[in-house]
């Protein structure tokens, strides 16, 4: 690994699943290019069925890609024997959505936290584990409790302590706060930000919540039906979305400032899409978004799949902008 190589680079990454019994194929990821430079926080935004969790699982080695390339710390993983691959993936840790389900219910907290170190053949001193718990704001007495004795927010802190235990280069956080109450979300997001800034850990941050992504990420990738439809730095993607899907998504995020001020004009910014999200096993022909698009320009949208092309501030996959 050289100083400049990104912690993660995916090129034309695809993954299909066969639906049992029907012979149908779901193309969960369709040629995704994505890079996480060292020290940065990259966001992956999408709704159910967009393929965002499939991507996370491939990065973590829980799934194999059907095709395409994946490089971790500058080394390609394709064709590596399982053992080498595991060693290569050791600096990658995951934080999952459901904090309680991601902790072993039969292990005390200190064992859960020590797990990644034990997997690397290192037995941490208790003091070190207590230090990790302290870092995520948990008192020492928590060390001997089990997951069921903790609140959801506390469980997520334990999961974060576990993720940072091995000083990872990359943390893949898959919806890390969406199961938590808003006041607890704020605490956990602040904690993740502290970790990122203090230790320079890179993040692949997956969420359906644009507000959360904007708070946390430098760059944002928007995924729709297994393809990236927009990429750009967090500021410009939200201030000036180039893809109609991003535009609808950004406008649909409920906001406290939506409260009417009596002028009657305040709610006009919201775009409510028509129709249902298409099923991933039957993506529409042409542009995958054309069935719900409020800016459809004509037959070209139904017939020709747009390319991901550069704009002034990033990339977009839309005939309108190309």
């Amino acid at each position, binding site marked *: 690994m050289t100083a400049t190589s990104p912690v993660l680079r995916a090129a034309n990454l695809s993954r299909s699943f066969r639906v049992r019994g029907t012979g149908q194929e779901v193309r969960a990821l369709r040629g995704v290019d994505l890079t996480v430079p060292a020290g940065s926080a990259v966001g992956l935004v999408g*709704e*159910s069925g967009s393929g965002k969790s499939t991507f996370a699982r491939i990065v973590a080695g829980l799934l194999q890609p059907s095709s395409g390339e994946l490089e971790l710390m500058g080394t390609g993983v394709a064709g590596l024997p399982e053992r080498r691959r595991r060693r290569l993936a050791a600096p990658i840790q995951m934080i999952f959505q459901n904090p309680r389900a991601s902790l072993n219910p039969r292990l005390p907290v200190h064992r859960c936290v020590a797990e990644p170190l034990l997997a690397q053949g290192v037995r941490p001193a208790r003091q070190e584990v207590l230090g990790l718990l302290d870092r995520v704001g948990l008192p020492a007495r928590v060390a001997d409790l089990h997951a069921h004795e903790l*609140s*959801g*927010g506390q469980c997520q802190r334990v999961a974060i302590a576990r993720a940072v235990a091995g000083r990872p280069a990359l943390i893949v956080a898959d919806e890390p706060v969406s199961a938590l*109450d*808003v*006041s*607890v*979300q*704020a*605490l956990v*997001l*602040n904690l993740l*930000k502290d970790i990122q800034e203090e230790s320079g850990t890179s993040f692949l941050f997956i969420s*359906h*919540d*644009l*507000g*959360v992504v*904007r*708070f*946390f990420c430098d760059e944002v990738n928007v995924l729709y039906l297994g393809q990236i439809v927009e990429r750009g730095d*967090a*500021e410009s993607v*939200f201030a000036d979305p180039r893809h109609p899907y991003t535009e*609808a*998504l*950004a406008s*649909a*995020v*409920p*906001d*406290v*400032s*939506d*409260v*009417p*001020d*009596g002028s*009657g004009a305040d*709610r*006009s910014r*919201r*775009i*409510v*899409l*028509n*129709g*249902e*999200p298409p099923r991933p096993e039957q993506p529409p022909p042409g542009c995958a978004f054309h069935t*719900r698009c*409020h800016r459809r320009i004509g037959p070209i949208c139904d017939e020709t799949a747009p390319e991901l092309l550069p704009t002034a501030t990033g990339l977009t996959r839309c005939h309108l902008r190309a």
Partner: protein
Amino acid sequence: MTETPTTPMTETPPADPLLALDRVEIGLAADPQVRAVDGLDLRVAPGEAVALVGESGSGKSVTAYAALGLLAPALRASGTLRLGASSYDLGDPGALRPLRGGEISMIFQDPGTSLNPVMTVGRQLEDVLRRHGGPPRRERWRRVVDLLAEVGVAAPDRVARAYPFELSGGMRQRVLIAMALSCEPRLLIADEPTTALDTTVQAQIMDLLMTLVRDRGMAMLFISHDLGLVAGSCRRMYVMYAGRVVESGPVADVLRRPRHPYTKALVGCRPTADRRLARLPSIPGTVPPIGSMPSGCRFAPRCPIAVEQCRTADPELRAVGGNVSVACLRASEEES
């Protein structure tokens, strides 16, 4: 593409409410002193959308269950429910039964678990109609298809014949809304109806609910933890913390100028797409467990402006002007 309608509604607590909950207390049947809800009063006017807001454990959902007589056997409620001119004792769940599905309907958070997985949704809708004396048998299917069309299902014939697993989450929630509307209730209780849905689908369902409230003059009690959703849909709100209402009033006033420190913190701690901060404001500590409520103000241990008096005196909900009520000793001082 449609725009979400604004709902013209009153902003004052109604003098002549459709629904009035008075002195609601919900505690453990085994130990009534352990209370999940402790002295709640709530009003909903005909045709009004009112929000009940709080985090997990605040008592908002359990309040809705009590109003429908659907509390778990381990819990017991007391207090009264008035619906129009009739009065009911919340301690007698059997008495509330006739209201359920007819006068008051409810939709739940997870549309996946509210439907029977082995029956088509059309059959399930037919069941509801039969149970509540709907149209005669041969007209029932027609009515089912009409109901599905009314909640914006594009192919109601096909959907009526589908099993729940064949439908998306948003479609299932539409089916449940159709079911809730089938008996033309005067009040719809919606408990986190969009939490399990994707953002763009959430916008569609909220749009549908607001249209129904506006066009049918149906009242809605909207239970949510999401202040953003509340801002866009309701005109009055109640904020609950640890089993009590800590602030109530018109949504515009409460969200623009929250007076209770808890409401303030809730409004401040949401990351939004409109502003970028280095760190989010947060609330230290956790909600006290219902068995061990602190004396005095229940928010005092986490409150940034608590004084000694807050730990001993229990603040009453009091009017502070502009139809806003706050249960905080320091609310007015802090404001000026």
